[in-house]
Structure formats: structure tokens, C-alpha cells
């Protein structure tokens, strides 16, 4: 075992050092203030250079520290300020410090282990941290929104515009084809579930099979997180950083810390926000200008021409902008946050409660989030520290219907087939909604205005997240200390989905069973615990300034029980599935993982050189061999040049290597049979379509990363750049096999996926005076990946979760990116039948018999992404905005396809490349029933003004005039999604019909339109 040799000298060092030597000491006192003022820096800490633990200043900025009698270097630091060190001569009893602001945010600590951290300036890997201030500049539907454009190296896309949000975070690209694709979310040490589970809408929409489906506009459970509770978010990207999380870390780790109490007078903070929302962009409808045009449409579509004549009896009817009518909810959204923090030297607390009601733009849709959190820190004597956190959340969502469906109920879908000259937003004399007479009429179709008024669709989540952390200083002497730390985390939630579709709905007769009631329940339980020993050795030598070594044991468990019941043909007015014809489904999963690790962080050469290394061993119930340990080593180093030249404050080179894993899915290891349904009341046993693999093992990500960080011109300019190169080996794959084998697919470890990318950011502070401040950050990221070394028995295969080649889908093919979009196209063939080239779009209109082949026709991976973040302030007035630019990234625009098929696209009548055809006809005919997919695979590049905030912090003197009890008062005007510039035809190129998916994440099919919101807030502190 390689690690043993790395650790051996350390262990020897520990044994040789004699820790029991007594030393003469003295006390130093002083005050820490903000430079140029007399204002205290309340969060500052003072320590002896090289030692991890120091003392904190009190509210007045005063400190007292016990130091050795001789020469001593004191280090003073605080988040938001530049650090300061000073040599204190023997005999000196006091030292005051004044700190400069740190606009580049270099003074942070970063996670290096389950129980250890390192200062950001010494970090050996690329680090992205988002503070609570940056996070919550403008309210958002869910936290993914608030992270967009702020996490270098991550691609964050929302899935929908529905209230409650939901989105996908992919760090450094696609890392898995079959396995988990989401990062690991760790909240105060609790490994948090971000699962997505349907609340049963599919049982009505029949978009796919079953009662619940991935096309139901499913929200991922990160939506339960309340951003107001968050102090900071750190995103671990590099495998060298995430290796400490073992076999669940290939997708990166998002470490979230909540706010904690601080000793001192109890502070109360109150925030009230009020906002309103509107659709940021809708796809619109075709406008009819004459009866003839309408009749031609009716004739083409096989609709009732007499009805059309009737509607045109009084001239051309008014244009019905269905989408603006249905998505017209402008009711105020609001958010109230109350928090209190305080305590004494021994006990600190932080308590907060939030009530948030976000209205959806569609009628009768909303998201109500209520959370409460209590964080307690308690010292028992000098050796035992405990911290406890407890959160209760209720998240109640009414998200309406969107995305794909097969009964014509999804509004954007059905509007694509419903002419804009009929008014559906009305009721008849008896108070009943009018029916939609088009697109088949009767139970074949729906009136979305009726549906959104009558259908009751909700999801109610109750969630508890709790953590406890106990640290015992087992041993402190001289420059050695040993801490024993135990952590336990619990994440428990119940998701209760309810759908009630009463018999009066237009479509309800379509299955002969009027009335549908669905109850969808998810019970989830996630536990994690660890026991850690942390040995800190701080000799202060030049060659070994300090070392932190930790080792521990980890046990994790994730269980989930999903069951859904549906009743159809209900008794009138009773939303109870029990009374109708019933069916049900259930899926249970349970993972148990165990791990052991050892880590060390060495700070050498007066903290200029940092070397980090470790190994974690994991085993899991999901692996084929459950007793086998899989080892994930890591090693990384950085060297910091402190003021190497004039105008260069510091410059750090770093390099890292790490290995992480991604365990198989639940049940991948099992050879199974399956249920073939019921016949004559008898259960049936059939061969499963997918063959499990008892030898399945985790896929492994190997990554080499190197880069640099530099600060220049007295911290006015900062640059960071990183290159990474990843190879995922032993990929988890489920390739389809020859259908004539009688099976559908295999499960195996095979092939490689490579991903290379660059990340760079430039932060500048062009203006920094007493009154003026302007800081600006631009970041750039790009990545490219490729599938390699597929074994010969794995043919190119499509990935599950798409609508087939006619609309574009992901294929796993050697030599290509997994993000490539494949589809049909007319081609020129050589004599051997090989594709010479793709023929232009429109070929199949003029020459329908041209052969077509499945070829790569796009790529969902953007060429690059750039974010531009600006903050201005003048005295107490602040303005910030965030612009996100995605260059490239194709989208399979099935919404456009629907609107062309229904002959209802807003630009249907525009001129086309063929004189005799309108644009809509041209597109649809060129698509040729899916034989030329390219027409609807469109460039999804965009520039978005994601957030903008105007803040006014009322000066304390002014606030005190209102009430002397006020400690702070501020006002904000905030906007989110104010502008979207894109040539893309659809509503939002970020969205995906299937929610969070590793691949096929480019399918735009009748989504809920993106939401623009404007808020005003007031924040009062006591």
C-alpha cells in the first residue's frame, strides 16, 4: 500500500517529538479595526502564525492571547479582510491591527477532509466558493438559480419555469452515462438527498408509462433548501478535492454551511420581500388574418370547417394570446425571514424561520416554502465542543402541467394545435368552461383554462435535516494536539403528491373512466455518520510549519420508498383513489456504504508549500462484490510566491491528481426476473429486459489538474486559471444488445470517457476609494469530451430517455462526445454505402427518396460559457448585476415541431427558402416525418441578464434616528431573469423535458415558460 510509506515519516515525527516540555508564556492584548476607521472587525481571529487555532475578538474588536515569552509572529485575519502578520518582540504586551478590505475574497478556508480545512490561499486545487451575500443577491425559484454564473466550472441549467424551480448542476461536464450524475450535496456534514421523484402527474398525462414519470416537471429536492439559511457554499470540483468523499464524488461535491451563532448580544434580523412575476418569454401563436387562411388550416388539419366559418361570422376574430392569458398570474409573491443569533462564550445559537410564497405565472400555481432552523454550539469545559443543527421544512408545490403529454393536456403542447381565433378563456351561461372543439374535440383534447382551474395537482414535502457534531480534544500539548470528532447527519423527508382530475374535465372520458385521483408518496431516509481523529502538529520549523493528519471511519445509508396509487372512474366529487378502478406501483431502494480514510495536509516552508495527500477506501451494497474495498487516492500540492515581484502580491502554482468513484445503481448487481403484469388475476414472472451484472463495480474518475492563482497590484487584480484532464474508466454502461437475443440491455463496466477543460477567471477592482467601489469578475469555461475504448461487443447505443432519432438523441459511440446530438439526415452515400456527406436541409422536400442515416447533427455542450459579474457601490448605495453568456449548445426543439405540425407557429406564414411554401410548411416538410431531424435541432446560445440588484444600506446614524435599537436597515430592489437575448425559437434553451438527466439533456418540449421576477426588500437588524 503506497499510502503507508507516505505516512510513515509523519508517524515517526510524532513519536520523536517530546510534547511535555513546559514553556514560559505572556499575554498580549489589543484591538482589530478596519483600516482608516476606528470601526472594530468583529469576526477577526488572532493566532500565532502556523497554529490553526487562535482567539476571536469580542464585539469591540478586542482580543487577549497567551503566547510564548520569546519572539512571536501574530496572524490576524477575518473574512472580507486581507490578513496581517506582525512580529511581536519579547516583552511587548499589546498590539493593535488595522485590516484592509479583501475584495478578491482570498481569505477563506476550504474543505480538505471530513473534519479538516485549509486556508484558501494555500489551497492545492481550484476552489469555488459562493458567500451568502453573493448567493442571495436576488430571490430565486430554487438555489440552482442563485448559483448560475457564480460557480466556475459548473454548468447549471434550470429545467423549467415552474414555481419551486428545479435545475441541474453539472460540474466539469458529464462524468457518467448510467450512474449518478448529480454532485454530492453536503449540508453541515449531512449528505443531503437531491433525488427527483414524480408526484404522479404522468398518471393523468400519460406522457410515459406508469403513474409517475420523469416528464412530470419533477422538482429535484434541492428545492427544499432555503438560501436564507446559508452562510457559504463551496464547490469541490477536482477529483483531488472530492476524493475524500469516495465513491459518490465523481460529479463534484457541494459543501454548504449554514449560518451559526456568535457570542455577544442577541441580534435579530428581519427581512421582508415582496415581488411579482411574469413569463420571461413565450412562444406565441400564429395570427390568422382571413377566413380563407383559417379554412385552409382547417382543411389541412382535418378540423371542422363549419365551426371555423361560424367563428369568422362577425369578421376576423380577435387574436387570442393563449399563453399570455393562461400565464397571467401577477399576484404578489412574498418572503419573510426572521433570524436571531447570539450567545456567550460557551453557548452560541442561531435560529431562523422563513415563510416564502412564490406565485407561478400560470393560474393557480405556486410554491410555498416554510422552514425553521436552530443551530447550537456548546462548549463543555475546555475539551469538549458540540454543535447541533436542526431544520424543518415544508415545501408545498402546485406546479401545474407542462412538458410532454399524450392526451393533449399540457398547455403549451395543446396550444400548438389550437387556433388563436377561438376564445377558450371563458365559461358558458351555466358557469361551465367552454370546450376546446379542435384537435379532435371532445375527450381527445382539453381546454387548458379549464384544466388549470379545475385540476388539483400538488406536492407536499415535509423534511427534517439534522446534524450533530462532537469534538473532543483528547490531547493537547506543546505543538501536538489530537481531536476526536464524531459526526452524524440525518435527512428524512416525506413527499406527498396529490392529483385530482374530476370527471367534469374535458378529457376525462378518454379512457372510459371519468375522474382520476392519484396519491404518490415518497419516504426517504438518509443517514451518515463518521468518526474522525485529527492530529495537528505545528512545530513551526521552516521545512515543516504545520501538519494536519486525519483518519476516520464513515458509514452512510440512503433509503427510499416510492409508491403511487391511481384510481380512475371515481364517484362524483370525491378525490379518493379508493373508489375507482385502481392500479399502483412501488419502487424501493436502499444503499449502504462504508468507508475508511486517512488524509494529511502538510504546510511547509513557512506555509509557502502545501502538500496534501490521502486515500479513502469504500465498499457499498451497490457493488457486485460487497466486501471488496475500492481505494481512491489523491495527492496535490501548491507553491505560493509571496510578493515575488513588484505589483505581484502573490502567485500560486498548483497541481493535483485524484481518483474518485461513482458506485453502480441500486439493483445493477442483481440478476433478476421481472413482473410481466397480471393475467386473469394471476401474477406473472418473465425474463427481465436488462441483465444484471454480479461483477459490477464503481466507475473511476482519474483527474489531473493544474493551474495558478495570482493577486496583483495590491489586491486590485486577481487571476485564476485551471486546466483539467479527466478519464473515467470502467464506465457503468447499459448498452442495448441485439433484440434477437431476447434481452434488451446489459449492465457492465466498460470503456472510457475523457473530458478536458479550461476554467479561467479575472477579477478586477478598478475603483476603490472611500466612497466608490467597483469590482468586476469575468469567468470563462470550456470543455470537450470523448468516449473511448468501447469493447467490440458494445455497439453504438442510444441512451434511454429521448424521443428517438426523429427528434435527436444522445448516442454512446466511440470517438464522439456523449453530448453530441444524433438524428436522421439525408446523405450522399458512396458505393460501399458509407456516408460521404450530409445533404442540405430541404433535400427531402425536393427529393423524398434520398437515403437517410443517423448522423451527428449537433452538440448540446456549449463551445464556452462566460459569466460577467459586476458590483458598484457609492457610499451606501450598491448596484450589482450578473450576465451569463452561453456560446453554442444545441437544443432539440420539439416545441417548434409541435407548432409546425399543428400549423400554429408564430412565424408559420413567414417566407421560406422555397417560394411556394411558408416557413412553417418548409420546416415541417423538410423534417419529413423525422427523416431529417436537423430542422428542429437549433442553436441554444444565449445571453441572459440573470440578476440585478440595487441596494441601499441606511447609514447607522440615520437608522439610529428612527430607533436607537436598530443596528442595520437596508432596502433592495431586485430582478431575476430580466432579459434573454437569443435567436433560439423556443422559450428557454436551458430547459429539459426530462428534468435532471446525465444525457439527452437538450429536449425542449412544451415547457412551462421561464419566469421573470421583480422584488423589493427591506432588511432590519436589531
Amino acid at each position, binding site marked *: 500500500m503506497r499510502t503507508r510509506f507516505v505516512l510513515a515519516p509523519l508517524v515517526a515525527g510524532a513519536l520523536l517529538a517530546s510534547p511535555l516540555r513546559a514553556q514560559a508564556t505572556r499575554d498580549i492584548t489589543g484591538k482589530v479595526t478596519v483600516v482608516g476607521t476606528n470601526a472594530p472587525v468583529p469576526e477577526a481571529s488572532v493566532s500565532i502564525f502556523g497554529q490553526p487555532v487562535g482567539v476571536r475578538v469580542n464585539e469591540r474588536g478586542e482580543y487577549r492571547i497567551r503566547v510564548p515569552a520569546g519572539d512571536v509572529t501574530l496572524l490576524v485575519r477575518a473574512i472580507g479582510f486581507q490578513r496581517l502578520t506582525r512580529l511581536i518582540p519579547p516583552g511587548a504586551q499589546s498590539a493593535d491591527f488595522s485590516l484592509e478590505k479583501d475584495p478578491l475574497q482570498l481569505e477563506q478556508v476550504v474543505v480538505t477532509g471530513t473534519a479538516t480545512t485549509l486556508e484558501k490561499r494555500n489551497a492545492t486545487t481550484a476552489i469555488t466558493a459562493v458567500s451568502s451575500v453573493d448567493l442571495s443577491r436576488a430571490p430565486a425559484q430554487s438555489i440552482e438559480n442563485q448559483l448560475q454564473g457564480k460557480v466556475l466550472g459548473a454548468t447549471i441549467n434550470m429545467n423549467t419555469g415552474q414555481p419551486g424551480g428545479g435545475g441541474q448542476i453539472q460540474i466539469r461536464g458529464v462524468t457518467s452515462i448510467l450512474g449518478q450524475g448529480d454532485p454530492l450535496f453536503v449540508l453541515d456534514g449531512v449528505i443531503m438527498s437531491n433525488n427527483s421523484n414524480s408526484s404522479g402527474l404522468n398518471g393523468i398525462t400519460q406522457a410515459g408509462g406508469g403513474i409517475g414519470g420523469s416528464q412530470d416537471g419533477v422538482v429535484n429536492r434541492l428545492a427544499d433548501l432555503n438560501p436564507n439559511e446559508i452562510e457559504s457554499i463551496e464547490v469541490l470540483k477536482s477529483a483531488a478535492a472530492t476524493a475524500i468523499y469516495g465513491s459518490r464524488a465523481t460529479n463534484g461535491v457541494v459543501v454548504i454551511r449554514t449560518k451559526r451563532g456568535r457570542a455577544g448580544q442577541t441580534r435579530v434580523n428581519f427581512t421582508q420581500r415582496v415581488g411579482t412575476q411574469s413569463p420571461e418569454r413565450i412562444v406565441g401563436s400564429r395570427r390568422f388574418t382571413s377566413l380563407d387562411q383559417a379554412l385552409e388550416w382547417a382543411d389541412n388539419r*382535418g378540423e371542422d370547417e363549419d365551426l371555423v366559418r361560424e367563428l369568422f361570422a362577425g369578421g376576423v376574430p380577435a387574436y387570442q394570446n393563449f399563453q399570455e392569458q393562461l400565464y397571467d398570474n401577477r399576484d404578489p409573491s412574498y418572503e419573510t425571514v426572521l433570524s436571531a443569533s447570539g450567545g456567550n462564550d460557551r453557548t452560541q445559537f442561531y435560529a431562523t424561520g422563513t415563510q416564502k410564497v412564490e406565485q407561478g405565472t400560470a393560474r393557480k400555481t405556486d410554491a410555498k416554502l416554510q422552514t425553521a432552523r436552530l443551530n447550537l454550539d456548546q462548549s463543555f469545559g475546555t475539551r469538549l465542543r458540540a454543535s447541533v443543527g436542526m431544520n424543518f421544512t415544508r415545501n408545498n408545490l402546485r406546479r401545474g402541467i407542462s412538458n410532454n403529454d399524450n392526451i393533449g393536456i399540457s398547455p403549451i403542447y395543446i396550444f400548438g394545435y389550437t387556433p388563436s381565433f377561438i376564445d377558450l378563456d371563458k365559461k358558458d351561461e351555466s358557469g361551465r368552461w367552454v370546450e376546446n372543439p379542435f384537435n379532435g374535440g371532445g375527450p*381527445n383534447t382539453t381546454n387548458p383554462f379549464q384544466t388549470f382551474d379545475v385540476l388539483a395537482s400538488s406536492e407536499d414535502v415535509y423534511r427534517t435535516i439534522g446534524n450533530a457534531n462532537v469534538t473532543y480534544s483528547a490531547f493537547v500539548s506543546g505543538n501536538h494536539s489530537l481531536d476526536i470528532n464524531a459526526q452524524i447527519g440525518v435527512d428524512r423527508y416525506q413527499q406527498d403528491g396529490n392529483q385530482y382530475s374530476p370527471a367534469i374535465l374535458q378529457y376525462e372520458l378518454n379512457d372510459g373512466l371519468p375522474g382520476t385521483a392519484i396519491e404518490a408518496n415518497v419516504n426517504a431516509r438518509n443517514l451518515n455518520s463518521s468518526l474522525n481523529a485529527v492530529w495537528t502538529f505545528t512545530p513551526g520549523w521552516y521545512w515543516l510549519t504545520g501538519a494536519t493528519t486525519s483518519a476516520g471511519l464513515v458509514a452512510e445509508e440512503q433509503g427510499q420508498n416510492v409508491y403511487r396509487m391511481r384510481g380512475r372512474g371515481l364517484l362524483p366529487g370525491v378525490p379518493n383513489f379508493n373508489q375507482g378502478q385502481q392500479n399502483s406501483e412501488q419502487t424501493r431502494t436502499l444503499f449502504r456504504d*462504508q468507508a475508511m480514510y486517512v488524509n494529511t495536509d502538510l504546510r511547509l516552508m513557512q506555509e509557502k508549500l502545501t502538500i496534501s495527500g490521502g486515500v479513502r477506501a469504500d465498499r*457499498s451494497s451497490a457493488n457486485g462484490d460487497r466486501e471488496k474495498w475500492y481505494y481512491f487516492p489523491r495527492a496535490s500540492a501548491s507553491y505560493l510566491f509571496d510578493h515575488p515581484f513588484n505589483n505581484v502580491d502573490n502567485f500560486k502554482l498548483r497541481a493535483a491528481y485524484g481518483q474518485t468513484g461513482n458506485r453502480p445503481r441500486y439493483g445493477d448487481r442483481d440478476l433478476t426476473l421481472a413482473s410481466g403484469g397480471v393475467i386473469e388475476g394471476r*401474477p406473472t*414472472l418473465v*425474463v427481465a429486459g436488462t441483465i444484471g451484472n454480479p461483477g459490477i463495480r464503481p466507475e473511476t474518475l482519474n483527474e489531473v489538474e493544474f493551474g495558478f492563482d495570482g493577486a496583483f497590484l495590491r489586491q486590485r487584480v486577481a487571476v485564476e486559471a485551471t486546466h483539467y484532464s479527466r478519464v473515467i474508466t470502467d464506465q457503468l454502461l447499459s448498452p442495448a444488445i441485439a433484440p*434477437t437475443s431476447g434481452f434488451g440491455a446489459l449492465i457492465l463496466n466498460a470503456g472510457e470517457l475523457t473530458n478536458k477543460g479550461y476554467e479561467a477567471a479575472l477579477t478586477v477592482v478598478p475603483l476603490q476609494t472611500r466612497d466608490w467601489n467597483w469590482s468586476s469578475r469575468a469567468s470563462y469555461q470550456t470543455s470537450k469530451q470523448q468516449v473511448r475504448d468501447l469493447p467490440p461487443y458494445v455497439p453504438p*447505443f442510444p441512451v434511454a430517455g429521448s424521443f428517438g432519432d426523429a427528434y435527436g438523441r444522445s448516442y454512446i459511440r466511440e470517438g464522439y462526445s456523449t453530448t453530441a446530438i444524433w438524428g436522421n439526415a439525408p446523405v450522399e452515400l458512396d458505393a460501399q454505402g458509407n456516408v460521404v456527406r450530409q445533404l442540405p436541409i430541404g433535400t427531402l422536400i425536393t427529393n423524398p427518396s434520398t437515403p437517410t442515416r443517423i448522423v451527428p447533427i449537433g452538440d448540446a455542450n456549449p463551445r464556452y460559457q462566460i459569466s460577467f459579474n459586476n458590483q458598484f457601490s457609492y457610499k451606501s448605495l450598491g448596484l450589482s448585476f450578473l450576465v451569463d453568456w452561453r456560446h453554442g449548445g444545441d437544443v432539440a426543439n420539439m416545441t417548434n415541431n409541435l407548432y409546425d405540425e399543428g400549423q400554429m407557429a408564430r412565424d408559420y406564414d413567414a417566407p421560406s427558402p422555397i417560394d411556394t411554401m411558408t416557413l412553417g410548411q418548409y420546416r415541417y416538410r423538410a423534417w419529413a416525418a423525422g427523416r431529417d431531424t436537423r430542422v428542429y435541432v437549433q442553436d441554444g446560445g444565449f445571453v441572459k441578464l440573470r440578476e440585478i440588484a440595487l441596494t441601499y444600506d441606511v447609514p447607522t446614524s440615520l437608522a439610529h434616528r428612527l430607533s436607537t435599537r436598530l443596528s442595520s436597515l437596508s432596502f433592495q430592489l431586485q430582478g431575476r431573469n430580466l432579459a434573454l437575448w437569443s435567436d433560439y425559437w423556443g422559450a428557454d434553451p436551458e430547459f429539459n423535458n426530462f428534468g435532471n438527466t446525465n444525457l439527452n439533456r437538450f429536449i425542449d418540449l412544451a415547457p412551462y415558460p421561464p419566469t421573470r421576477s421583480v422584488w423589493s426588500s427591506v432588511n432590519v437588524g436589531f
Partner: protein
Amino acid sequence: MRIGARAALLTGAVALVGCNADRLEVPNYNSPTPDGAAASPLVALAQASAGIFTQMRGLGTGPVQQFGIYGREAFNYTPQEGRNTTGYLQTPTDNTGFGVGTFGGYFTLLRNTYNFRQVVEAASQSLTAAQVSATKGFTSTVEGWDMLLYIMSRHDLGGPTEITDDPNFIAPFVSRDSVYGWALGKLNTGLTELQAGGTAFPFTVTAGFAGLNTPADFAKFNRAIAARALAYRGSLSTGAARTQFYQQALQALNASFINPSGSLDLGAYHVYSTAAGDATNTLNMVTNLDLVAHPSIVPDAQAGDRRLAAKIRSIPVKNPPVPNAISTTVAFSRYAAQTTPLPIIRNAELILLRAEARYFTGDLAGALADLNVIRTTDGGLPALTAADIALEDQFITRLLYERRYTLLLEGHRWVDVRRFGRLNTLPLDHPSHVRAAQMVVPTQECDSRKNTGDASLAAPSCP
């Protein structure tokens, strides 16, 4: 050191509780495992046999509708899915298109019968030799039926006929005639096994096989399927071979449940139910409003043909979801409810098969009599005379007419016109429409075979 001892104790406790390998033994909560099935072999036998019936049923409505569209009996005019129309009528040779229809399902059933043999093997200690033989006979018969249905869909392409333990094993495509031969071989083996099968099957046979649910009676079903295979093979052959196949078909018919004076509906059926987890007949007229009939069905019927009124109903004009296709005002009333059984093979077909076999073995009078049974009892039409079928061409025309209307929406017309070389009698409703002779092999199969690099394993019809 008390503190050290406590820490050690704590460490030990966590190690025991958290890191005990036994805790990693997590069962599969969602799917049965072969080990679980092996533990209760008779339960497995009961459930796996029921599984064969559901798998057979899975090949019920799909192929009937697909053959129906290719045979210009039916259209699937789902408004939001034009490819149900274009895929069949315009681009049937597109390996990725909708016109590919059912393919893997035929082999899934074959995989299930392969597995079922192992289930029987595991349960054999609890069964008598006769019961084992009966079970084998059942399995062989199902396999013969399955591959006959397959070759009806792929015709000249032929197909693979081998399944092994290795899921990666790829069997070569063999000729159409070899597939017929394989299916008939299975049926003949099955007959022998059924004959040694004693008095009852050791599992429940569905109500769709009422009257055919003992080994002896199931052998009659076996012979009915064999008769169909032999007649098809006969019609696709010439000269002595043709006569020989038809003679064998007559023998098979004699051993089947044919009964010219019995109900024409006697036979074997797929059964449906609206109960939870069960399947419904998706060709039903209540919920499937997108399945409509080809308009030619009305003018092509002879005046007074009762079958038209019995199986066809008028509907408001139904337009195709795509341009370049025709609208229709007729749909089917063949399957009245979601639970109406779907024929696998029935007496009417056997009588028509006998008419055909008799004609081509020289028994013109017998052929006329059989044809008239159908024509008069089912169609309510005047009987034909010998003059009406004097020429072979006349007979075929008459036979195809009776088969078209009696077996409407049971998956026959396309196969029938093709085997008598009359594919071009199917109407083309638009210049862009084509007549498909067979359904092509889907891309997934093409790619898997291409990927082996072995040209002898290539599938026909692949790009």
C-alpha cells in the same frame, strides 16, 4: 488512560455498528431473483407459465395493427403523431422509422420460453413425467407460433432462430423457408410432447384457450397453427412442394379443432381485463378513437355482405395528422370493448385454410363447400358455384375476399395478398405511398450485427 480507553471503545463501537460487512447485505426490493424463484419451484412454474401467456398477448394487438396498416385495412391517425402514418405508408424501409413495428418482442417471447424450460427443469422433481412432457409440448407450440408470427412480419428477410445462454450470442439470419421449417419443427416436436402429456397441464391455461386447455386439446391448437404454417408455406412454393405442403396442411387441419358446422369463433384467444396490472385490447372501439378503417373497405364489399355492418361503423370524417394521406369516415367495431378477446386462431380461419388446401390438392368441391360455409354463414351472401372458382386466379380472388372480410382486423390481409403475389392489389392513396412487402430490421439489430465485424451475421434490409 481512561480517556484513551473511552475513545478506543467508541471507535470500536462505531466500527462494529457502522462498518460491519453484514450490513451491506441489502436485498433487491423491486424484482424477483432467480434464487428466489428456485426456492419455490412450483410457484415459479405457475407464474412463469402465466408469464408466457402475457408475453404471447404482448404480440397480439401490435402486429394486428401493423399488418392492418400495411394491408390497407387500417390507419392509426393519432393527431399528435404523424409517424404512425408516414412510417408505414411512405417510408417503410427506414430502419429507424415507425414502420419497423414489433421486432424484439418475438425474441423476448423466445427468451421466455427458453427460461421457462429451465423453470420446468427446476420443478421437475415435483412433477410427473407426463406433466413435464405436457409443459414441454406447450412451450414448443408457443415457440412455433411465435416464429410463424415473426416470419409473417419479416417474410423474405428470414430471421435468426437460435437462443443460447449467452446474451451476446448472435445467431445468423436464415432464409424465410428455414424459419418456416424451424417453426414447423417446433410444432411437430410439441405435438409429440403433448401426446405424452397426460390429462392435464401442471399450470393454469387462460380462458382464451377454453376447450383447448388439456394437453390433448392443446394439441388441436398446435395442429391449427401448423396448418396455417403449412398452408402459407404451400402458397409460397410451387410444383410438388406446394402440393406436399398443402397435403400436410390438410392432415394438420384434420387433427385441429376445425368444425365446419360449429361456431366460427371457436378457437384460441388473447384475453384482456381492465383490472389493475392487466392489459386491455387496444384495438377496441371505445377508447381507441385514432384507429380507423381504410375507406376502400366499404365499396369493395359485395352488396349485402353482413360482415361489413358487423365490423365497420361510420364515424365523423377523420383526417390524417399529416399531409399526403387520405381521410376516412369509417372505423372498426370489430372489438366492442376493452376486454373483447383477440383471436390467435379460430375456426373460421381453419375452414378457409382447408378450402385453400383442398383446392390446391385438387379437391375443388371440398374447397367450394368450405368457402361457402364462410361466405353464407358469416357473410350472408349467396353461395358460389364451381364456375366461380374454375380458374386458380378466380379461386384466389374469391378466397382472398372471404379471408379479408371474415378475418378483418385479425392481422391477415397483408400476409394473404403477399403470399399469393397480389401485393399490388393494395390501393395507393397518394403518389408518395408505397407498398411494403415486409417490415425491415430495426437499427439496433443492424448495429449489433455490424459491430461483430462478421459479415455472415449481417441482417438483411440494414443500411
